[in-house]
């Protein structure tokens, strides 16, 4: 039964009468939040007898179904979000079943106002709404028990899945209550102070087993590439090598004549091939000969572009968009006793998520059904609707787990591809990109060149800091040009992390020179911090040397925030910073993740390296990372995310590089896009610090500190600066001279 919910205003307290169950078959809670008005809710909890409208359904047998509003890409939110609800609900966790919420405005992330998963903000964003939803459900249960017993609700408490009246010794299980209770027309108001105190948490703060561990250890079908739909065909799209280009012609007859091929279709952006089996589709793809339109990016050569980026940075008359400024850094630097400058460059990097992009779509006269692993469910529905030419209500989206997101699945062109293919043949089509296609048509972290100029006074104190960056913009791809214009040209994806709020830098300016080259770019895990924090923290070590201070002492003197000092200090302590190692050196870096309204998490990272001068190979022996995450909800999972980010960023710091020649990506698979393997992983020790009562961003937190910690260790070991990411063996040898 699909019941529209009328929400009044922005308070998350309204329940539709239509959500009431008939015949006492269970209890559902139509809690909404975030100001969603007139949300259409497709209540599709399978197997739960309470027809859910928002987060919780309780069946008379005591089974509690909790919906998780956000996608899952491996970071563990499909465990922690339901756990937050269960905590305030005071549920018996062993009775909880988790289901994926459908796409509906009622589940929108409060910050993004969409079901959208980026910026490591999933847990932080849903924290209060989910706590409130759980607490409201608990209150409804208590009110129902109070009415049943004829006692004031103030005399009641709860134990897991049980309402208790201590005075009379009576207890009622949540399931029993669901059997007779009626949800009220107005949900109870729960003020923040009525939520549980952190000290009372039963689950949060202690580890539960992640709900998908068993499935992932036994090969259960979880991903878009696993979907099997009766009558399904297979398809792939050979995208134009260059962004914005498309086919002018291709060997259509030859392709269509190949075994099992059903159709070969011209699209604006590429050639679609549809066939009976994936092996036949991939075989046909190998035989494709297409001519492509010449466009802006068709002559791109990334090495040449990088030189131009540097030339622009060095020319003070070449203006960029001023992203932010505090004080007058240009004046301070101009008047400084000494200026320390350096340049930093980083290559394009590819997400290399283990599951190449895939999506299944079925366009019929009724609408379109889509199966996708996606970071943006809401956008999937909108674009699938537009592509199929139907209303969004006619789109049924199954949100599946992603075999890696990392920002690659933060937009939905592969969903559009699947819908186009299905529409072309009038059958369900499972679209799979080959790994080669996934690389060639990849969208990369922009290549960057950065120039830092730091003014020091006579005593060596920083008086001004200028951070210039040349790179493509990502916003137009993700959000459209209008968003860039609205934000005064500030592309947060490309310049995040260039700010230094925790360091004593009295005047600071960041400017971004747009380099519109026509290359496919996107958000990559950690976004800009992977290169902006590299520049900042490598420069700080340079400044430490210039002022003859130990890098740790220098940072502790310059950091003006107690939490920041603590993570740096503690990481150094874990690494036994003061101990000299024969043939090895340590490097340290601070990093942060967040934005002022939601708060910052922070890390101190130390790397221990040695060097094989003959080969230029840097060996990382140890990484220590101390993370202040506010309130750690699931400590072991947080450790796993820190390890994950450290390894991911170490791979990019040392090995990963996409190069573009004559407009086309030169790499194609893991033989020429090398990523870190088990044998290269150092000993990793992470430590999680609690500093407050709010969970702060975690998923990408440990990205920003790794490259600079390694570069700083290299500086300590060799007195040589590495300034080009990745710090490949060739570049190391070049730098050593």
């Amino acid at each position, binding site marked *: 039964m699909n019941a529209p919910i009328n929400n009044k205003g922005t308070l998350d307290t309204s329940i539709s009468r239509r959500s009431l169950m008939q015949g006492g078959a269970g209890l559902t809670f139509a809690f909404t939040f975030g100001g969603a008005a007139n949300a259409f809710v497709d209540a599709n909890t399978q197997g739960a007898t309470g027809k859910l409208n928002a987060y919780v359904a309780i069946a008379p047998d005591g089974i509690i179904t909790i919906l998780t509003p956000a996608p899952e*890409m*491996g*970071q*563990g939110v499909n465990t922690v979000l339901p756990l937050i609800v269960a905590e305030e609900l005071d549920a018996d966790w062993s009775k909880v079943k988790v289901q994926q919420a459908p796409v509906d405005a009622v589940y929108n992330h409060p910050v993004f106002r969409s079901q959208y998963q980026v910026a490591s903000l999933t847990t932080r964003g849903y924290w209060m709404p989910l706590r409130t939803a759980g607490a409201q459900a608990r209150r409804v249960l208590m009110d129902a028990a109070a009415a049943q017993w004829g006692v004031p609700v103030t005399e009641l408490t709860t134990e897991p899945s049980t309402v208790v009246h201590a005075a009379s010794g009576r207890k009622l299980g949540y399931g029993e209550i669901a059997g007779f209770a009626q949800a009220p027309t107005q949900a109870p108001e729960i003020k923040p102070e009525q939520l549980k105190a952190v000290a009372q948490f039963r689950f949060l703060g202690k*580890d539960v*087993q*992640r709900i*998908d*561990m*068993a*499935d*992932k*250890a*036994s*090969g*259960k*079908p*979880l*991903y878009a*590439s*696993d979907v*099997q739909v009766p009558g399904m065909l*297979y398809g792939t799209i050979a995208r134009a090598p260059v962004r914005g280009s498309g086919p002018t012609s291709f060997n259509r007859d030859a392709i269509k004549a190949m*075994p099992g091929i059903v159709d070969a279709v011209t699209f604006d952006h590429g050639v679609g091939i549809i066939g009976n*089996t*994936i*092996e036949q589709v*991939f075989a046909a793809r190998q035989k494709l000969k297409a001519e492509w339109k010449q466009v802006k990016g068709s002559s791109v050569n990334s090495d040449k572009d990088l030189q131009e980026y540097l030339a622009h940075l060095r020319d003070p008359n070449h203006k960029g968009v001023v992203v932010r400024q505090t004080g007058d850094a240009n004046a301070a630097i101009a008047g400084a006793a000494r200026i320390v400058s350096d340049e930093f460059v980083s290559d394009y990097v590819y997400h*290399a*998520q*283990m*599951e*190449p992009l895939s999506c299944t779509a079925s366009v019929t006269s009724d609408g379109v059904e889509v199966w996708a692993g996606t970071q943006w469910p809401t956008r999937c529905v909108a674009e699938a609707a537009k592509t199929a030419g139907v209303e969004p209500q006619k789109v049924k989206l199954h949100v599946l*787990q*992603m*075999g*890696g*997101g*990392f920002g690659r699945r933060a937009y939905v062109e592969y969903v559009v591809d699947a819908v186009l293919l299905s529409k072309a043949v009038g059958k369900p089509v499972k679209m*799979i990109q080959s*790994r*080669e296609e996934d690389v060639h048509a990849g969208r990369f972290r922009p290549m960057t060149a950065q120039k830092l100029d730091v003014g020091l006074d006579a005593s060596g104190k920083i008086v001004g800091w200028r951070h210039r960056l040349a790179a493509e913009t990502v916003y137009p791809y993700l959000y459209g040009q209008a968003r860039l214009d609205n934000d005064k040209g500030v592309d947060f994806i490309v310049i995040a992390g260039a700010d230094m709020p925790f360091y004593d830098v009295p005047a600071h300016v960041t400017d971004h020179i747009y380099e519109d080259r026509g290359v496919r770019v996107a958000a990559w895990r950690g976004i800009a911090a992977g290169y902006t924090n590299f520049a900042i923290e490598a420069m700080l070590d340079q400044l430490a040397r210039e002022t003859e201070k130990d890098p740790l002492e220098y940072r502790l003197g310059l950091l003006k925030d107690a939490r920041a000092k603590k993570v740096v200090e503690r990481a150094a302590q874990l690494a036994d910073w003061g101990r000299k190692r024969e043939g090895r050196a340590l490097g340290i870096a601070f990093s942060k993740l967040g934005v002022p309204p939601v708060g910052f998490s922070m890390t101190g990272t130390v790397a221990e390296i040695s060097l094989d001068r003959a080969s230029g190979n840097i060996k990382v022996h140890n990484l220590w990372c101390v993370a202040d995450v506010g309130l750690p909800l699931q400590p*072991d*999972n947080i450790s*796993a995310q820190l*390890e*994950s*980010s*450290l*390894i*991911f960023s170490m791979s990019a710091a040392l090995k990963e590089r996409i190069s573009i020649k004559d407009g086309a990506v030169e790499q194609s*698979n*893991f*033989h020429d896009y090398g*990523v870190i*393997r*088990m*044998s290269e*992983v150092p000993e*990793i020790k992470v430590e999680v610090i609690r500093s407050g009562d709010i969970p702060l961003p975690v998923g990408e937190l440990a990205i920003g500190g790794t490259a600079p910690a390694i570069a700083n260790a290299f500086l300590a070991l060799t007195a040589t600066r590495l300034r080009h990411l990745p710090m490949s063996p060739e570049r190391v040898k070049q730098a050593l001279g």
Partner: protein
Amino acid sequence: MTIALTINGKTASAEADPQTPLLWVIREHLKLTGTNYGCGSGLCGACTVHIDGKAVASCQTAASQAVGKKITTIEGLSADNPHPLQKAWIAEQVPQCGYCQSGQIMKAAELLASNKKPTREQIVSHMDGNICRCGTYPRIVRAIERAAREA
């Protein structure tokens, strides 16, 4: 043409060209989707299955090469109980996105079948062909060591 295979102790047949990579026959013809496509070039290990007990990249194995042999996939790793590796994988909370994990477990199972007490070096050397982008490598090592201890 019809290809008859023995998978996880049962016979199964598929209509496919004999040169079809075994990976696609397993996944898409026989609907055993636990074995995953990561690169199609034998570089990543996501498609690892056992043929007569040996771990192979199923994307590099023609279906015809597997005829008459015993194929084991992640679905058939253990008859009815979780394999010690699977128990260890859960105990150590190894998977994140999970996409590489079937291949990792199959590769690890080959090691433990022939070496009950591998050293850490032997584990790393054996597993080095399997890529994980989520950084679960340290936990994979611990899980293999745990499975070896608890077997």
